């Protein structure tokens, strides 16, 4: 692979004009072949190529005057795949000073720098955008003089669903989120030795209690089962530090508080899992408010970086229209995710009688590097116990 450049046909030659191409794209060339005719101050000169291969494409047009050293054509040597030199831009003609003017050597391939430097953006924003594969042209700046600043890029990144992302994404919008989810889930399955547990939980008492609560409270204060579940999970984790934290740099770091990631599907496709901070500390009505607020903001594309970055465990709930159970995938760098299937009315043995009960299948996917199945089972049992004493939630 090589670039055929405007040759220097004399010590005082600064530029030459391409008069004729003698080889066309696709032609085979051999070292020593005459490839083009160049007009210089000394007249038209036939020039030869010193590489063998295929002329892939011309970089300048006939009639163009370009400085010595400018790439004129790409020569693909035998065995090199086509298109491997596409990074070389076509060269526009450069105005050359008349011979009488004092010589200023024209810079080589200046056209590579030609054109816009893009929107006004701070160095911090540019660095972050490059790291995360975000196109600055798609952003609106909030900084001085309308410059794009760090937080603008960060927000764009978060809107894209960065909670599940670990590497640079190349595209934007839904595609970007898809790429982000792909990266995170592939990493999860590649790096995390998952184990899975499931448990059927009778949540009839929880639902009854919730019904009574909702009957005695105004609509604004009413609860949904997800809030009870979130609280039960947050409280249960208190005694199970090995499920609540992040695995970084080959080591598990337990978290002091439960920042409960809530998986929320987006209408346009994809999902994010921002956290409710210190969920165990919130009362049920507070948790309900937080859930509603988070869901609304996520669907409006407005949530905070801290809500995405510091989840310590995640809850994914399939909701009313979901199926019986889910075998979830852990969001790295977390080490556990708890799933809840849709609540189904099922025949259930209570004492010696078969009675209809509301059953929810809870599942746990956890990182076997950090915890073992025995403890995972105890955690699911603990969540069950919490759900069956809803008045204590």
């Amino acid at each position, binding site marked *: 692979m090589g670039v055929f450049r405007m040759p220097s046909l004399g010590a005082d030659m600064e530029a030459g004009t391409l008069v004729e191409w003698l080889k066309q794209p696709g032609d085979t060339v051999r070292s020593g072949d005459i490839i083009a005719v160049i007009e210089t101050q000394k007249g038209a000169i036939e020039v030869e190529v010193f590489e063998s291969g295929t002329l892939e494409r011309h970089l300048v047009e006939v009639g163009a005057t370009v400085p010595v050293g400018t790439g004129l054509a790409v020569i693909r040597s035998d065995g090199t795949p086509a298109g491997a030199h596409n990074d070389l831009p076509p060269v526009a003609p450069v105005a050359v000073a008349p011979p009488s003017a004092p010589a200023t050597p024209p810079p080589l391939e200046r056209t590579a720098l030609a054109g816009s430097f893009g929107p006004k953006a*701070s*160095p*911090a*924003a*540019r*660095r972050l955008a490059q790291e995360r594969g975000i196109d600055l042209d798609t952003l609106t*700046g*909030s*900084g*001085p*003089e*309308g*410059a794009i*600043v*760090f*937080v603008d890029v960060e927000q764009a990144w978060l809107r894209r669903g960065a909670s599940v992302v670990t590497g640079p994404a190349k595209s934007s919008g839904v595609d970007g989120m898809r790429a982000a989810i792909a990266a995170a889930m592939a990493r999860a399955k590649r790096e995390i030795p998952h184990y899975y547990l499931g448990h059927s939980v009778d949540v009839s008492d929880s639902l009854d209690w919730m019904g009574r609560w909702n009957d005695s409270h105004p609509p604004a204060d009413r609860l949904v089962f997800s809030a009870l579940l979130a609280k039960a999970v947050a409280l249960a984790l208190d005694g199970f530090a090995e499920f609540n934290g992040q695995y970084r740099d080959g080591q598990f770091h337990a978290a002091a508080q439960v920042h409960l990631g809530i998986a929320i599907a987006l209408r346009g496709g994809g999902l994010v899992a921002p956290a409710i901070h210190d969920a165990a500390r919130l009362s049920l009505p507070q948790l309900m408010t937080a859930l509603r607020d988070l869901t609304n903001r996520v669907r409006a594309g407005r949530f905070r970086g801290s809500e995405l970055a510091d989840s310590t465990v995640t809850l994914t709930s399939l909701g009313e229209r979901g199926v019986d159970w889910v075998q979830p995938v852990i969001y790295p760098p977390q080490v556990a995710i708890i799933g809840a299937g849709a609540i189904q009315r099922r025949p259930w043995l209570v004492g010696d009688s078969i009675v209809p009960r509301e059953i929810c299948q809870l599942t746990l996917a956890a990182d076997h590097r950090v915890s073992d199945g025995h403890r995972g089972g105890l955690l699911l049992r603990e969540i069950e116990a919490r759900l069956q004493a809803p008045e204590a939630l």
Partner: protein
Amino acid sequence: MTTDQGGTVATVTYRDAVRMALQDALRRDPRVFLMGEDVGRYGGCYAVSKGLLDEFGPERIRDTPLSEGGFVGAGIGAALGGMRPIVEVMTVNFSMLCLDQILNTAATLRHMSGGQFSVPLVIRMATGAGRQLAAQHSHSLENWYAHIPGIRVLAPATVEDARGMLWSGLVDPDPVIIFENVMLYNMSGELAEDAGGVAIDRAALRRRGRDLSLITYGGSLWKTLGAARQLAGEGIEADVIDLRSLRPLDDATIMESVARTRRAVIVDESWRSGSLAAEITARIVEQCFWSLDAPVARVCTAEVPIPYPKHLEDAALPQPAAIVAAARAVMGR
């Protein structure tokens, strides 16, 4: 009043703190003596050394002729001879007369003697404007000294530093210049009664924020802290860095802050061109460029001789309103 450690604290002025530092040094080390214009019988132009002549006598509290080149040179000689002199130059504006002694003698002797001689000298100078002393008594020229290798330049902004930096400067084997801003002498602050020497090579984070770094020293610290409080009311939380040492500059503290906040405003009561603010700006750009979210901004003194009329003097100096405006600008507000 007592401290957490059970020691007692007292409210003292900055002037008191400097005097306590002088008394302490004079009592602790018989090699220490103070000399300068009007430091003895008059008690110091800013009343810092009032009473010291009575306590320590004319051998150790020495009034000098109005000859900065002479008495700073004498101080250098005494330091070379094994003494620990403290030389007071009434204001930095007068120190041009002894700049040759400081730059060409004090700062160079260790180097030129191959390390055989050191000059353990402390020079105290008042600096700064705000007292309507007009253009020959009001300039801030600290950065001229901060330019010189071979000396250490300190700017105490708190009573604790006013009390502590003198002793630390005396312990240093090389020349140390301490700049006392004239607007601070009447300021009060709490000081532990057992206060002593302080570290002199690190800047101090006087306020912690997340949105921008306000970097300042000396008399401007309090205006900057006032501006930071006002900004907090607008939801802008600023780090406030008190440089304390102007040479060497504590790059680590500055860069840690700027890398975190991504924005910097430097408040410096000297003229903008060739100022310490310019030096700090350059260092931030050299070391923190890829962390910046806005151009580094400076709030400096207008490039005029400091005016005598109060309203013009106020207008020439960095003021909280200008600091707030600069902070808003780097925040894009």
